[in-house]
C-alpha cells in the first residue's frame, strides 16, 4: 500500500504559540519565540532558571465524558482533538465507530498528576485520591479521546520519548492504508513543566540557559553558539482519513493536505547519542514509502533540538540524503521541545508550511555552525509557492527515529 495518500481533514492545537491555526501561523512565519525564563526553587536544590515555552491554557476548564479529574496533558489532548474533529466535521454518525481509531503519543504522560501525587504523599502526608491511577496512567488521554469520540476501532498510546506522537501518527497512517480502519484521531501531548520533571531535565545538562534579558533566544538550532533546548508543552491533534472515506464525505478538495509517507526505525547504538546512519535509513525509508525522490521534497522541518550532538548528527544525515538543495528549518526555537507531543506540533508546522506555500524561518539562527553545509531558512520566511512535499524529522532518546512526509494535492 506504499504511496497511498492519507488525508488530513482537521487540525487542533494547544501550543505555546496559541490555540488557533491563525495564532500559530503568525508566530511560525514571523519566527516569534514563546520561550521565557522560569525560576525553579525546590528545597534542598540550588535555585535554577530554565528556558521554557508554556501554554496559556486553563486545564480546569476542560470537562471530560468520564468526569474524572484530568491531568493537564489529558485536558490539552481533549481540547486539541475536539477542535480537530470540529474542523473535520466529524460529527457522530459520520464515521463507523468500529472503523475509527485513536493513536496518541506522549513521552511522560501523566507527569503533572504524578508530581502532584508524590508531593501530596511525601511532602504533605496526604492520602491518594481514588482516581490517581486513572490520571497518571500513560493511556489516560487515549482513553478519554476514545470515550469522547466513541472510537471503537483502536485506542493505542505510544511512548517513545521525542518520537512518540510522530510514531502514533505514522502507525495510524499504516492502519488506514492497511484497511484496518477508515479514520483516526491522532497526535500527541506533553505537559511536563512540573518541578520534578524540570529539575530532571536540568540535571541532564541538555537544556539551554535563558540569556539574561533575552530568554526568547535561548534555543538556537544549528547555530554555532547553540546551547540546548527549551522545555515546551502542548498538544496537537489531526483527523486522518483514507482517500475513499474522506472523498465520500466530501472532505477532499483541490488543495487538500495529506500524509504521503512514514518510516520508523531505531539506531540501536546508544541510549542518547544519535546515529546519523540510523537517521539516514529512516529518511530514505520514508521517501520510499511516499514513492518520491529526495529532490521532490521542498522543505525539511528538522528535529533541531539545538543540542551539540543532536544537531551535528541531523545536519550530517540531511546532507547525506538531500545534499544541499533542500531548505531546512527548526521550529523548536519558538515553541520549545514538547517531547512526545513535538512530532505532532511540528507536523502541524509542516502542514501549515504546505498550506501557505511559505517556509518558516529558524528563529535565533544568526550564524550557522560552520560544519553544517545546509540551506537553513533564517531571518525572513521564504516564499515557496510550488511546494508539494515537506518532510518532518523526530529523533528520540532510546534511538527511535520517526520521519513523516506530508504533501499538498496540487500546485497553486
Amino acid at each position: 500500500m506504499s504511496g497511498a495518500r492519507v488525508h488530513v481533514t482537521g487540525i487542533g492545537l494547544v501550543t505555546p504559540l496559541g490555540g488557533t491555526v491563525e495564532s500559530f501561523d503568525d508566530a511560525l512565519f514571523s519566527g516569534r519565540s514563546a520561550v521565557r525564563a522560569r525560576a525553579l526553587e525546590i528545597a534542598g536544590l540550588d535555585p535554577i532558571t530554565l528556558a521554557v515555552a508554556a501554554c496559556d491554557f486553563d486545564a480546569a476548564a476542560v470537562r471530560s465524558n468520564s468526569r474524572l479529574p484530568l491531568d493537564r496533558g489529558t485536558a490539552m489532548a481533549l481540547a486539541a482533538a475536539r477542535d480537530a474533529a470540529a474542523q473535520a466535521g466529524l460529527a457522530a454518525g459520520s464515521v463507523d465507530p468500529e472503523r475509527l481509531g485513536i493513536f496518541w503519543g506522549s513521552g511522560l504522560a501523566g507527569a503533572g498528576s504524578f508530581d502532584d501525587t508524590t508531593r501530596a504523599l511525601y511532602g504533605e502526608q496526604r492520602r491518594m485520591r481514588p482516581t490517581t491511577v486513572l490520571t497518571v496512567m500513560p493511556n489516560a488521554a487515549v482513553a478519554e479521546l476514545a470515550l469522547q469520540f466513541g472510537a471503537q476501532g483502536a485506542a493505542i498510546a505510544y511512548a517513545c520519548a521525542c518520537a512518540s506522537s510522530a510514531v502514533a501518527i505514522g502507525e495510524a497512517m499504516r492502519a488506514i492504508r492497511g484497511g484496518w480502519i477508515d479514520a483516526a484521531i491522532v497526535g500527541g501531548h506533553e505537559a511536563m513543566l512540573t518541578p520534578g520533571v524540570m529539575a530532571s531535565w536540568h540535571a541532564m545538562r541538555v537544556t539551554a540557559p535563558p540569556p539574561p534579558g533575552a530568554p526568547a533566544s535561548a534555543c538556537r538550532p544549528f547555530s554555532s553558539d547553540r546551547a540546548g533546548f527549551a522545555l515546551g508543552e502542548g498538544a496537537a491533534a489531526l483527523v486522518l482519513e483514507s482517500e475513499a472515506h474522506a472523498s465520500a464525505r466530501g472532505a477532499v478538495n483541490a488543495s487538500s493536505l495529506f500524509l504521503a509517507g512514514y518510516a520508523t526505525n531505531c539506531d540501536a547504538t546508544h541510549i542518547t547519542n544519535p546515529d546519523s546512519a540510523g537517521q539516514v535509513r529512516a529518511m530514505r525509508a520514508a521517501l520510499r514509502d511516499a514513492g518520491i525522490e529526495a529532490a521532490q521534497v521542498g522543505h525539511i522541518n528538522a528535529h533541531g533540538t539545538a543540542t551539540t550532538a543532536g544537531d551535528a548528527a541531523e545536519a550530517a544525515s540531511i546532507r547525506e540524503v538531500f545534499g544541499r538543495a533542500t531548505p531546512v528549518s527548526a521550529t523548536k526555537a519558538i515553541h520549545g521541545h514538547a517531547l512526545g507531543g513535538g512530532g505532532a506540533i511540528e507536523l502541524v508546522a509542516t502542514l501549515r508550511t504546505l498550506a501557505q506555500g511559505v517556509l518558516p524561518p529558524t528563529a535565533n539562527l544568526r550564524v550557522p555552525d560552520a560544519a553544517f553545509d545546509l540551506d537553513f531558512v533564517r531571518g525572513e520566511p521564504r516564499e515557496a509557492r510550488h511546494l508539494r512535499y515537506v518532510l518532518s524529522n523526530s529523533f528520540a532518546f532510546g534511538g527511535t527515529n520517526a520521519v513523516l512526509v506530508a504533501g499538498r494535492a496540487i500546485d497553486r
Partner: protein
Amino acid sequence: MSSSSSSSSSSSTVFNSIAAILVNQFDVARDAIAPGAALSELGLDSLSLMEFVFAVEDAFHLRLPEDRLDPREAGITLGHLCEAIEAQIDCKLDSPMAAQA
C-alpha cells in the same frame, strides 16, 4: 446521632456545601439535588461517587468510614450523608481531643 441534634442552619450549611461540590465538580444538575435523593441516583458511577465522598471529606476535614456510610449502597441519600457529616462535626466539637486531632 440524628440530624435533629444539629441546628437547622448548620444542616443547611452542610447540605449547601455538598450540593455545591456536586454541581461544581461533578456536573450534577442542581434540581436533581435534594435531601431525599439517593447517591446512587445522581448519575455518578462508583468511581465518581468515591471521588465525591473524597471531596466532601476534604471539604469538611473529616473521614467517613465506609462501614458506616458506603456511598454505593442503594438506600443512602444526601440526607444520610449530611447526618454522617454532622455527627462527625459534633463528635469533634464534643471531644476533648478535638484540638489535637
